[in-house]
């Protein structure tokens, strides 16, 4: 059975290491914060100018001056720091953020990503996505394996306007965990009950399958 969004987030959370500074994008990536493993301390960066993002505030305790990059009201944790947007993207560009998790419309087998624009539709803008993907040293994409029409989002080449080139390192979808390698998408794990053939059928970019592919354990 394909993973739920929560399960995708839960699986991504296993990629976190103690002491990581992490930037989580809007959508599934945001959920990762709910599954940080015991004993692992990570600091969440929000590119609008915060290190040490905490959970949503309690009802009635929202602070209009305290939001995340998705414009949601949030809180801080002890040890947090505020800074301006130039320093925020400065630390991203300088590789100080250890892991960036974001969503995508398409990823190519070379690690290109498209997630900001659909020709013919109203374009809202790239926000900080282009800065993040151009700079982050470790990018995990969290997304559904197929789009709502059932077409693969893992492609030989992206068909949509790019957000960044050769930057995605790992993809975690509802069907599988894959590394982006020089030779294509390397299948690492599969969702419980999802077969390698299912994944093959839904992956239009080059898929590398070596040996036995274990199921993701929950």
């Amino acid at each position, binding site marked *: 059975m394909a993973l739920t969004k929560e399960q995708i987030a839960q699986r991504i959370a296993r990629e976190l290491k103690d002491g990581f500074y992490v930037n989580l994008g809007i959508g599934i990536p945001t959920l990762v914060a709910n599954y940080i493993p015991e004993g692992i301390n990570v600091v969440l960066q929000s590119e609008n100018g915060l290190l040490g993002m905490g959970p949503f505030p309690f009802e*009635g305790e929202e602070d209009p*001056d305290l*939001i995340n990059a998705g414009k949601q009201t949030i809180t*801080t944790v002890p040890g947090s720091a505020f800074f301006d947007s*130039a320093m925020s993207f400065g630390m991203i*560009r300088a590789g100080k953020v250890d892991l960036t998790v974001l969503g995508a419309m398409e990823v190519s087998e070379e690690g290109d990503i498209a997630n900001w624009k659909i020709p013919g539709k109203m374009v809202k*803008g*790239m926000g*900080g996505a282009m800065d993040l993907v*151009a700079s982050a040293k470790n990018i995990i994409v969290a997304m559904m394996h197929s789009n709502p029409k059932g077409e693969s989002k893992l492609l030989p080449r992206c068909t949509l306007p790019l957000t960044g080139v050769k930057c995605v390192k790992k993809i975690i979808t509802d069907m599988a965990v894959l590394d982006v390698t020089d030779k294509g998408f390397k299948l690492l794990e599969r969702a419980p009950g999802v077969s390698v053939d299912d994944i093959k059928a839904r992956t239009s970019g080059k898929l590398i399958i070596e040996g036995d592919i274990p199921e993701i354990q929950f």
Partner: protein
Amino acid sequence: MNKVVADANEAIHDIQDGAILMLGGFGLCGIPEKCIAALVAKGVMQLTCISNNAGIDDFGVGLMLRQKQVKKMISSYVGENAEFERQLLSGELEVELIPQGTLATRCMAAGYGMPAVYTPAGVGTEVAEGKEVRHFNGKDYLLEYAFQADFAIVKAWKGDTDGNLIYKETARNFNPLMAMAGKTTIAEVEELVPAGKLDPDAIHTPGIYVHRIFQGTGYEKRIEQKTVRKKHP
């Protein structure tokens, strides 16, 4: 040397049609509410607005859009605004979308007297079209120019009569960068104190960058997306 003005109307009195403005804020957080209201009241037209977002239909920069005061928006993200979308699709409004970090850095560059900066954001995408690409240490970068703005309009938490500013939490965002970048910089603050009352170590924007300052009253500080969690009983 008197930087203190009575109110937003006085602060923006010489902003004319066709001006290039920078407006601080991220979403509706840390936006110069009072100056936006004064610009709407004054009805100044054909503005170019450099602002990370375009507000919503009935708040923030959206109020100026509704009156068709804006000729061009330079932003990183302009969602959440139906009137904006209508004007854009009808060709009434011009929009230049640029990566958020590039936007921030181009403001900072202006304030730091750097004519241009290199950033990797947008390399290999349509953002790079027509731009100079340069290779440093195994990576490609785009040359991006410092912004030139007639007026920077920012919102701070506290300010003093010498123009020193302190921002609150994530309401800082683009405000200190734009404050440095305006030919004329206008600051509206929630609390204006006499020079000497702010801790000199805690100042985010030194007064040298600020030309006019006033204390706004009755800040609405609207929340764009209220997200909360339940208290455990």
